[in-house]
């Protein structure tokens, strides 16, 4: 497939119902932190974007959404071209102004502090981080508590940001300000809203 075709193809086949399906998965995930919600491969985007990341982008982004992309995504003209053609997003270089951040290399991502946390009056003016990971069967099992979780939830994303526990504790401590995380795995997604309390599960 030529580069140009890659950019223009691979969008939702049914814009209306596909984005509704992905949104419901996102809403379900955000309302039930750590729950792994299966989604179909509804959009196909050029590397390094995976199908789930592309679907989330096509569901949430438009000309009203400023998005910060990490280096591997920015370095790919095809990936950026796909995002622009299919969503019309505004790419921003300043993470502290971004509504969303698209992160393909989770281990190398900037700290949560680099992104918008919102203000005390408007804590919703914060960045939602979309982390692209391999799967939800990672070695480090996290125990989650908080709104949306009946008793406890166990969550094991394959990749986590550096110093995740410390960063998350600081993020939780800044409530109601803070960032929210969406994890885009293979064929599934999950979320961690800022309200979730996380501890490491004893092996």
């Amino acid at each position: 497939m030529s580069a140009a075709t890659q950019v223009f193809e691979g969008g939702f086949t049914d814009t209306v119902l596909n984005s509704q399906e992905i949104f419901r998965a996102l809403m379900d995930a955000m309302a039930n932190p750590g729950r792994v919600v299966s989604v179909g491969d509804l959009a196909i985007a050029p590397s390094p974007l995976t199908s789930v990341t592309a679907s989330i982008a096509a569901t949430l982004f438009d000309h009203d959404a400023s998005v910060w992309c990490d280096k591997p995504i920015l370095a790919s003209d095809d990936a950026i071209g796909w995002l622009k053609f299919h969503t019309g997003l505004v790419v921003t270089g300043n993470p502290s102004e971004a509504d969303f951040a698209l992160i393909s290399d989770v281990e190398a991502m900037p700290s949560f502090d680099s992104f918008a946390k919102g203000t005390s009056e408007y804590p919703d003016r914060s960045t939602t981080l979309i982390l692209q990971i391999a799967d939800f069967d990672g070695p480090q099992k996290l125990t989650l508590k908080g709104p949306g979780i009946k008793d406890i939830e166990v969550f094991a994303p394959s990749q986590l940001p550096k110093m995740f526990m410390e960063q998350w504790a600081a993020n939780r401590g800044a409530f109601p300000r803070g960032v929210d995380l969406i994890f885009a795995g293979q064929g599934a997604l999950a979320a961690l809203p800022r309200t979730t309390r996380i501890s490491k599960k004893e092996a």
Partner: protein
Amino acid sequence: MTELATYNFAYLDEQTKRMIRRAILKAIAIPGYQVPFASREMPMPYGWGTGGVQVTAAIIGPKDTLKVIDQGADDTTNAVSIRAFFQKVANVPVTTRTTEATIIQTRHRIPETALAAGQTLVYQVPIPEPLRFLEPRETETRKMHALEEYGLMHVKLYEDIARHGHIATTYAYPVKVEGRYVMDPSPTPKFDNPKMHNSPALQLFGAGREKRIYAIPPYTEVVSLDFEDHPFEIQTFSQPCALCGAKGSYLDEVILDDKGGSMFVCSDTDFCEERQAAGHRGELSAPQAEAAE
């Protein structure tokens, strides 16, 4: 055959849905906080549930089954017209049974039947700001929420006690969500407040004219404000439902004649009908129909 142009699925255009969906995700992440959103003109007047309709339109899909209630009833004007609206613009299955619905849009009641995980309750909200009648300026109420300065609300409840001897607020009774935000549960009777606490269902609130969306995720702490010596209490009724005999459900008074006669019946019509179908009878029930006819 030429097809007439139809509405986009669920009436709203896709850009509007994305905007509302982004607001809903933020609202769920910050329970009880009112997220501003760019509310649209809807084909019904403000005050008829435009906020709830926009939230429902942004989340509903072909796999959903919709129930709409107005003061607990499935068969009153607002409920019937909104249900018909979504049948027309989204062609989704509708129901009056609480247990069969995946999305329940409500005006001022929470169903008596306990909600289940996976269900979403969408409230129509007229005034989302619980502090609005105490402080009219949005800039000030924003600051009060930011600083968690809710003393004024307690003063209001205290003044109730000073004037009436008890907390006289009976609907739109303020709650505190997850120990942080004071929230208006919309004008539901305070009878329903305990149902919001630790509900397995997701609760979304849409205020169309006031342009706010807020949410309570499942299993979230929702506490009605009160005082140690004047604890929160729900309404109680001295008689059971006149049609199904239910005790402990929320009752509406129905005027029967112009001589002061009235009856009390369940406000939740589905709950009442299910009970009657199961053979429960109240004092004003029609005589038992001949079952063998």
